[in-house]
């Protein structure tokens, strides 16, 4: 099959989560009509739909009942009374959450445009929960100093995703559901298209476009315990890296403190928000030792570290003593049924535990990837530390690193990030097209190279003992153990060696399914190859960063070090030699938001 088919669009978006669909919708609204969106899952299956808690924006609809303190009840702000929230406050919270590694120009844009984004969502049909007077309801979220999480019960992401996909359909966006992007074509720093497979038939296509955007989501699947969907294999990140684009801040991976034991499935932050306790094997509320003030409500990175310490010191629970207990029994059946029904269902379905009567074993779970493909505030991908654009290539959402989250993301800020910068990238691409962007020629037959890659996987000798699943499992084990909540030089060096070994073993791995039709075995192998690609970047970046900042915590360098490390990591692919590390400065307003100690 050397003759491959070609499809051409003005804009091709890879990924149909919030970032991808927003970009397509915004570009379409701006007048570009020839847009193709590919997604390896049906768009509505994208992981954005799993988000529960909410999406941040300082709407000023709600305030704590005066005098009731920081965890008291909330009430609607009566019309005409003073607002309590502002974009400045949101900005400060975000910067502090990012441990000062977030780019402040990008954060400023995000928090300023946030209310407008929420209203646009609302005008397009999103069903937000409401206050009595008809305004959008809001609630508290970790790390935010005011209640500014706008939500739809406990399935916010689901509602946003459906709204935006349906509007994109309304505006005539063409979707390619269950198409898998295999390669990105960049020549002379100009992006010319992608290579993709129609999963149903197994056929490859060269897809040419004047502008390409990646919104391929996160990469939590490199860890054994993760809250991420099986699709979150960081394909976009690995593909871009292979195509010569650098990756930024890959060492920063957020671990959520309450993943179901052994499964990683997320138990909402609301569990602790509603007053849940964390207990070790002795039954002690161990947070007393680590954050006596905020206890269980300390920020995610801190709580995850505390849990891990208990586990490491032998006070863990569960079969492998690898978890701790989340205790919700004291909340009583009424509160549990009314406020945490989904959580109760999850614990019951997956572990057979009824949280009304029993404690649930939980453990930190890989949750969110702060790093990714570096891009500016218009989603324009950059090729180096100076910000040189890769012409025609854009990125937004979790796969991108516009760096609004820096070293640690605040809950509810990522739905905002994905939507908002998806929208901005869509508008920027539309302007790019309308200003006369060209369709550049492609040299050679890039689809043929992918064809050969797939053929190699299928041709691997059936006698080979090496299995893709085994390699994947070993990688995940390594990442969880040696590049997880706590890190140190020795273990990360070991992890790096292990990854090299796995990379060397991979070419011998065999794929059992030899058919063309809907071959998830081949796709699984390709995804594993992607995991191996970016995992090396993660570990290499983390190994080099000899400080502790946000989610990156080293036991051998336990302090933040602004003198040497207030900078982004930028990793380039360097042929077979492995990653080459570089650095990029952080955009900081030294007058208004100078770095401070991060205390809660």
């Amino acid at each position, binding site marked *: 099959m050397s003759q491959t088919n070609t499809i051409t669009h003005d804009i091709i978006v890879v990924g149909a989560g919030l970032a991808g669909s927003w970009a397509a919708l915004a570009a379409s609204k701006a007048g570009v009509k020839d847009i193709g969106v590919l997604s390896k899952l049906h768009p509505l299956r994208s992981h954005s739909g799993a988000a529960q808690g909410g999406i941040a924006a300082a709407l000023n609809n709600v305030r704590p009942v005066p005098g009731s303190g920081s965890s008291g009840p909330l009430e609607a702000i009566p019309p005409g009374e003073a607002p309590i929230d502002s974009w400045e406050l949101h900005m400060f919270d975000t910067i502090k959450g990012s441990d000062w590694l977030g780019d402040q120009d990008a954060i400023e844009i995000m928090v300023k445009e946030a209310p407008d984004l929420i209203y646009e969502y609302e005008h397009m049909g999103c069903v937000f929960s409401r206050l009595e007077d008809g305004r959008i309801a809001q609630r508290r979220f970790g790390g935010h100093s005011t209640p500014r999480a706008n939500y739809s019960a406990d399935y916010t992401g689901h509602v946003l995703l459906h709204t935006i996909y349906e509007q994109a359909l309304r505006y005539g966006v063409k979707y390619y559901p269950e198409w898998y992007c295999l390669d990105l074509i960049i020549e002379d720093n100009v992006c010319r298209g992608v290579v993709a497979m129609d999963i149903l038939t197994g056929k490859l296509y060269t897809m040419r476009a004047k502008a390409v955007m990646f919104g391929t989501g996160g990469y939590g699947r490199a860890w054994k315990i993760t809250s991420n969907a099986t699709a979150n294999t960081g394909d976009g990140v690995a593909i871009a890296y292979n195509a010569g684009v650098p990756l930024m801040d890959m060492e920063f991976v957020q671990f959520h403190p309450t993943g179901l034991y052994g499964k990683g499935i997320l138990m909402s932050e609301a569990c602790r928000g509603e007053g849940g306790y964390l207990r070790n094997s002795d039954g002690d509320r161990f947070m007393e030792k680590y954050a006596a003030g905020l206890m269980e409500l300390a920020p995610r990175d801190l709580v995850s570290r505390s849990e891990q310490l208990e586990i490491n010191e032998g006070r863990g629970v569960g079969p492998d003593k690898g978890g701790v207990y989340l205790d919700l029994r004291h909340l009583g059946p009424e509160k549990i049924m009314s406020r945490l029904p989904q959580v109760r269902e999850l614990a019951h379905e997956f572990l*057979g535990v009824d949280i009304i009567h029993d404690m649930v074993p939980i453990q930190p779970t890989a949750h969110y990837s702060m790093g990714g493909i570096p891009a500016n505030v218009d989603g324009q991908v950059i090729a180096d530390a100076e910000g040189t654009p890769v012409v025609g290539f854009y990125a937004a959402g979790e796969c991108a690193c516009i760096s609004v989250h820096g070293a640690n993301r605040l809950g509810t800020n990522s739905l905002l990030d994905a939507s908002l910068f998806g929208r901005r990238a869509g508008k920027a691409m539309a302007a790019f097209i309308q200003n006369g962007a060209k369709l550049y020629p492609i040299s050679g037959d890039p689809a043929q190279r992918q064809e050969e890659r797939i053929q190699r996987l299928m041709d691997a000798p059936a006698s080979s003992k090496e299995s893709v699943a085994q390699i994947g499992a070993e990688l995940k084990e390594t990442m969880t153990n040696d590049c997880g909540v706590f890190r140190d030089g020795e273990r990360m060096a070991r992890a790096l060696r292990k990854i090299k070994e796995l990379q060397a073993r991979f070419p011998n791995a065999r794929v059992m399914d030899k058919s063309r*039709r809907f071959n998830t075995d081949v796709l699984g192998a390709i995804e594993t190859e992607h995991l191996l690609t970016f995992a090396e970047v993660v570990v290499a970046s983390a190994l080099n960063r000899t400080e502790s900042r946000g989610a990156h915590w080293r036991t051998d360098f336990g302090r933040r070090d602004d003198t040497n490390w207030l900078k982004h990591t930028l990793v380039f692919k360097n042929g077979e030699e492995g990653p080459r590390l570089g650095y990029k400065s952080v955009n900081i307003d030294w007058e208004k938001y100078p770095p401070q100690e991060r205390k809660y």
Partner: protein
Amino acid sequence: MATNGTTRTVTIRLQRFNPDVDKKPVMKEYTLEITSDTTILDALEQIKATQDGSLTFRRSCRHAICGSCAMNVNGRNTLVCNQRVNAHLDRKGAVTVRPLPYLPIIKDMVVDRTSFWEQYQRVKPWLVPPDDVPEKEFRMTPEEVAALNDAEKCIMCGACYSACTVTAVNKRYIGPHALLKASLRVLDPRDTITNERLIEISGNDGVFRCHTIFNCIDACPKKLNPTQAIETLRKLAQKREAFVAARKERQKSL
């Protein structure tokens, strides 16, 4: 606590079919070690990883929110990611998994949902808001939002669609999932094309084709109630003009 290390051996009976190679679907048995918290999806993943890599199925989120993994377990449609194997074992210690019935099989558990999505798009699942929108949000009351809750929770898994007897014989029928979606937009006070929607869903393939069989409710993994949505739409379709007039009135104060 349920999570203990003890394992037991079970039989997973799977319907296998690759139309390119096989004449017709066959049942194959796989023996597997599971623990009490192994889900059916875990079991499938395990079989794929260790016994037969060509086993094909869809999945993504692993916790009943993405709608990928609807299949037929022991004759009942369900998601497999939130169902523990233990809960479905028959007397012989086996569980039978097939693809969703009455849909063309692409491969193994993967079915062709083309007609399902066509019907979804047919009801124009998007809201068409008024031309001039307010500076801030439309003022919907909590009651108006509550009326939309059920429909909004649908994850488009297709369990209902594949269980409905009417769609089984007639793919022109809009189907429970899409009618539930239609009810979401029809009941939304912000919608401006309610009249067209009601005309479309009261046509030959719409709400009056439902014979109140309730399979959709029984099959729905999110415990939603498409039948009730259909009955509501039936009533609104019969008093369409009055309802649309009331809607116009309501929109003046949004």
